[in-house]
């Protein structure tokens, strides 16, 4: 079935672009990148909530 094949191709191509390219290269988790522990993340958020921008 030609349509079926085309749709599967679109699905896999899209998943590849989204997860292997977009997520990996452009969308790192900001807090995970900067901090190792939950405690550090909490402290950072508390700082940003209590210092005026």
């Amino acid at each position, binding site marked *: 079935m030609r*349509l079926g094949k*085309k*749709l*599967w191709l*679109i*699905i896999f191509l*899209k*998943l590849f*672009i*989204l997860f292997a390219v*977009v*997520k990996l290269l*452009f*969308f*790192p*988790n*900001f*807090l*995970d990148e900067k901090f190792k522990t*939950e405690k550090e*993340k*909490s*402290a950072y*958020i*508390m*700082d*940003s*909530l*209590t210092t005026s*921008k």
Partner: protein
Amino acid sequence: MEHVSELVDWSRAQFALTALYHWIFVPLTLGLSFIIAIMETVYVKTNDEWWKKTTQFWMTLFAINFALGLATGIIMEFEFGTNWSNYSWIVGDIFGAPLAIEGIMAFFLESTFFAIMFFGWNKVSKKTHLLSTWLVAIGSNLSALWILIANGWMQHPVGMVFNPESARNEMVDFWAVVLNPNAYSKFLHTISSGYVLASLFVIAVSSWYLLRGREIKFAKRSIIVAASFGMITSLYMLASGDESAHQVALKQPMKLAAMEGIYRGEERQGLVAAGILNPAKTIGDDKLDTFLVKVEIPYVLSVLGYHSLDAFVPGVNDIVYGNEKHNVMSVSQKMVIGKEAVTALGQYKIAQKANDEIAKQEALKRFEASEKYLGYGYLKDPKEAVPDMPLVFYSFHTMVGLGSFFIFIFFMILYNSMTGDILKQKWLLLLGVLSLPLGYVAQEAGWIVAEAGRQPWAIQDMLPVSMATSNIAAGNVMITFWMFAFIFTALLIAEVSIMTKQIKIGPEGH
């Protein structure tokens, strides 16, 4: 400051782009799955092979939409982690619990039964197949429920408490979150408007065949199923839309004021059915008229919004500057309390670092007394609490106006299909085709009302968007904005071209 506002603008633009594009695919999935299930039920009941063919044709179009829309929503989760990390951390459990349930349910229900629905025609019994089709419909609708519970929480946060120790919201009452009335009205309105869109889709494709004199029997039968389904579900859509407006009136009065273009509120407030806002009108000015022209139905907004003829509906000016007579607190007063909350958080932080338990408890007490207006502590000017009035007003009126138009279309198509020959009503068939893009316009307008209408809040009264973003360069967000604009546009072009090709082939060539 410049950097912050540019960053917030690009982050919002990117989120809006993703959400609006994602939403092009979702409502058709929500609704078409039920129309297919109804058609297949007729097939199983009548044993008429012709209905099987009809079901399979609509199922093919459903598959195209599903394949192209699949995983477009995940991008919003990427954005949460990268662009909105403060927000993602602060919302805490809310995305964890409901979204985990959503993921599991959607995965099991949709993928398992989806496979049977598509590939199991000759492999399982008719009844098992039918059951799978119904479960796909129910599963996809249920997965919308959990997303809307999370969205409902942002509009009206309940069942969670902000813990300064972890700087997150923690769930204290799961059922309060799940049974949030905001979430329910949203869920019902979203799914019923999805049913309406899918009905418009089936009507548009069938009308196109009828206008071309093709697939007459197929199109006539499909159009009756769709118009009946559309007629019934649009009444649910109307009722749930009314309940949504009631919830907005109770919990987000500023959004209601923007939806209806009200600057100075009144008791026995009328409903502006249509109007053109006066562009010269500004917040705080009581002299200029709000509308250049308007059609108003007296008293109706008080009744719809608050279920009472005498109810006072506050306007933007009442909310920003306060209205003592009607007990409306001004934004400036809320800002003072909000700043108290921010100061208390600062004291908590210092006490935490010093390991001073007593000072921590004192700061916590101060915080709890003022946290209701925490978000206002971050506003610089009371006018920041006002959303974009024209955007919200026109989007709301577009949605409601189109909703009434769709009910008219469903009624006319049903009436003409039952009593005469719909083939002769070329104008109606033409309207049937044209109403499909309008269905999408109404869908997108609905989300603009819901989301732009609650600005500046990422979490109502708790966290303004300016505090919700990550500390990243605006330029990066701008680049990914254009990247998504490109990817989504390509997906949309693929959707439309594959869909139209398949429609042109028709059910016979299927």
